[in-house]
């Protein structure tokens, strides 16, 4: 698998195109013995989350929902309302940071932090390009599945610490939901890991490269890969509390669920965490099933589209595009479907998704051992 040869887009000062070249160079960047490079390495996904949440996450979702609902969406602040999100952030910054007197202050304050850290930690193992990954763990996928569970602690802390009955309902629902849905989600991802034979995120990506573009993606490499793909997509909706599984924050039932009592920047943090998780699960599904940073375009005869559109910089483009596509689907579903009931949600998880995940697991194993 010669990745360096594929790159037509390398930028010389970015020091070569070999695997993880950018991130390794950053780790090595330590002037005066200070690990500055590591800090920058961690800051890059953070900046990405902030920018994406502001532009696509908030403004984009408002415009997309407006389009679906025959409205205009924000139109007042700036041309087509593009400055609306900045105005909202300014408003949130100015807001009084209220901690209700009956709240458990410690839990109330750390709740949003833990929540955000939980989803942000998973970015460490997301390969944004063939040349960039925060931490090239050999159990990257396992880490990504596991670390997200920390979010549950944050949600429980936020809901319990608020000392509000609606928040308590929301957090208890949320914990039950996330813990349950991790099982089908993890089994579905295991199918992908089985096809790759590794849990290393970069290797999973590399195994899906090839001159036929999308045909090398795991989704098209096995006749049953669509099943774990769908299962993971549905389960990931529940894991990030998006509709039709937005039961923890069901606004018509629980007001706002576990963040009812939050205001100001703490509220913004909870939102940022939600958007971070949204991209995280979308990136994972595109890495495991849709080739991650690989170009989906095939080489057709004279036009070697695949060669032209691969490389570290193209990789960033592809993975973000794929991630954004899944976020768009998440938004699309949110603005179309009603919400399931708590027991129906659990039914779907334990009696539909989990058995099917097991079935797809066994079928994938058979396919991998005997056919491929």
């Amino acid at each position, binding site marked *: 698998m010669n990745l360096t040869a594929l790159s037509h887009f390398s930028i010389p000062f970015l020091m070569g195109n070999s695997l993880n070249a950018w991130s390794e160079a950053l780790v090595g960047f330590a002037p005066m013995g200070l690990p500055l490079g590591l800090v920058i390495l961690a800051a890059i996904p953070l900046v990405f989350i902030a920018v994406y949440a502001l532009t696509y996450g908030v403004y984009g979702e408002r415009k997309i929902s407006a389009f679906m609902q025959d409205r205009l969406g924000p139109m007042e602040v700036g041309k087509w309302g593009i400055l609306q999100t900045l105005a909202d952030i300014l408003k949130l910054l100015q807001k009084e940071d209220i901690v209700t007197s009956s709240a458990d202050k410690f839990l109330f304050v750390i709740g949003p932090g833990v929540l955000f850290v939980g989803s942000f930690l998973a970015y460490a193992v997301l390969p944004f390009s063939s040349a960039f990954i925060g931490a090239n763990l050999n159990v990257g996928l396992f880490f990504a599945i596991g670390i997200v569970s920390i979010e549950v602690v944050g949600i429980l802390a936020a809901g319990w610490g608020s000392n509000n009955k609606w928040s308590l*309902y929301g957090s208890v629902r949320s914990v039950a939901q996330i813990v349950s849905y991790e099982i089908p989600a993890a089994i579905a991802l295991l199918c992908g890991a089985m096809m790759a034979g590794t849990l290393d995120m970069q290797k999973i990506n590399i195994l899906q490269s090839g001159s036929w573009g999308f045909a090398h993606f795991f989704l098209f490499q096995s006749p049953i890969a669509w099943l774990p793909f769908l299962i993971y997509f549905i389960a990931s909706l529940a894991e990030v509390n998006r509709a039709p599984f937005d039961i923890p924050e069901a606004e*018509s039932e629980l007001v706002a669920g576990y963040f009812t009592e939050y205001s100001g920047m703490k509220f913004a943090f909870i939102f940022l965490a939600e958007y971070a998780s949204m991209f995280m699960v979308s990136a994972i599904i595109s890495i495991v099933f849709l080739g991650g940073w690989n170009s989906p375009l095939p080489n057709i005869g004279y036009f070697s589209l695949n060669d032209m559109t691969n490389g570290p910089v193209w990789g960033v483009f592809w993975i973000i595009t794929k991630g954004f596509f899944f976020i768009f689907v998440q938004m699309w579903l949110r603005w179309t479907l009603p919400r399931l009931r*708590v027991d129906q949600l659990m039914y779907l998880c334990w009696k539909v998704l989990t058995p099917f995940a097991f079935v797809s697991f066994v079928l994938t194993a058979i396919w991998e051992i005997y056919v491929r």
Partner: protein
Amino acid sequence: MQELDIAGLGSVRVTRKSDNVVVLEKDLATEQMLLAMGPQHPSTHGVLKLECLTDGEVITEAEPYLGYLHRCFEKYCENIDYPAIVPYTDRMDYLSGMNSEFAYAIAVEKLLDVEIPRRVEFIRVIVAELNRIASHLVAIGTYGIDLGAFTPFLFCFRDREHILSLLEWASGARMLYNYIWIGGLSQDIPADFNKRVKEFVDYFKPQVVELYKLLTENEIFVKRTKGIGIMPADVAINYGWSGPMLRGSGVKWDIRRNDPYSVYPELDFIVPVPDGRFSDVGDCLSRHLVRALEIDESLKIIEQCIDKMPGSQGFNPKAAIPKRIRPKAGEVYGRAENPRGELGFYIQSDGKSTKPLRCKARSSCFVNLSAMKDLSKGQLLPDLVAIIGSIDIVLGEVDR
């Protein structure tokens, strides 16, 4: 069987199976939590407060508390002239002001015994049915929100907007019309009104189908509403339910048919009653279906009214309005089919005054809401929201 309360274990059930075998069973029922739902809550449709006793997600008891929007309608009526009451009826059920005015006008006209011009009757029916569609659109849209679907709500409000502009064109107001006066109308409809209404009907018919596809036939929506909050027909009648609520329970009762008023007997429309094919009769889905199907019937009525309406030559909408309304002594009960059920006005006159001695409004929402306690027992919290939504209350009419 013996119940013990062991500290730290909660309630423990001790069952003696035989002499030697004792089964200790920890009771699953936990401490109940008192949950105040409302008056500020997104899905109580206004300022309704439900005090719920909850066991986990299960509601063991829900008690509605009313009166947050009480405006002394009945006391006011004793102090103002008959025509001046009309604007107050708008403010009862603010989503269907025309229908409320219509009911009040029917009651007073019964007391006065006046002859209403035919054109007035047709105009009244058109605006009332338009308003019924608008009201059902709000009911269906907000019901979607209650169940988590936001988009149908905005689609409903987009189409409702057209109706509101039509009614604004006719009456000058968007919601609180003061258009149907005792014995007539405040003014004739504008010249092209019928044409525009016809245009709206043609535009709206495909939108109804779209709404069916988006909401009514949605798998999750059906799952959330089918079999939830079932009200048997006999209990519904005992509670005094009316309108879509009663029809949802399978009782074919529509005042437009059963106690006809105005020109309804001449018009061809059916009273939709669920037959149990798509829903369990009496559940939330049946009530929703009745509202959805009634929109179609209202469209039919409007089309017929436009065709049958007499021309405007020599028409004076105020011709039959008495100069000074002073009914002879007596009492009357006039009622009409509102979007939410039977709205009735009981009016007592002493024969001397221009003000009613007593004017009582029989509110459909109030009566429908009274079954809340029965309906909510043992339901899940999300189902409680679905049930409140299916009752389709307007707190302005509940509290008056």
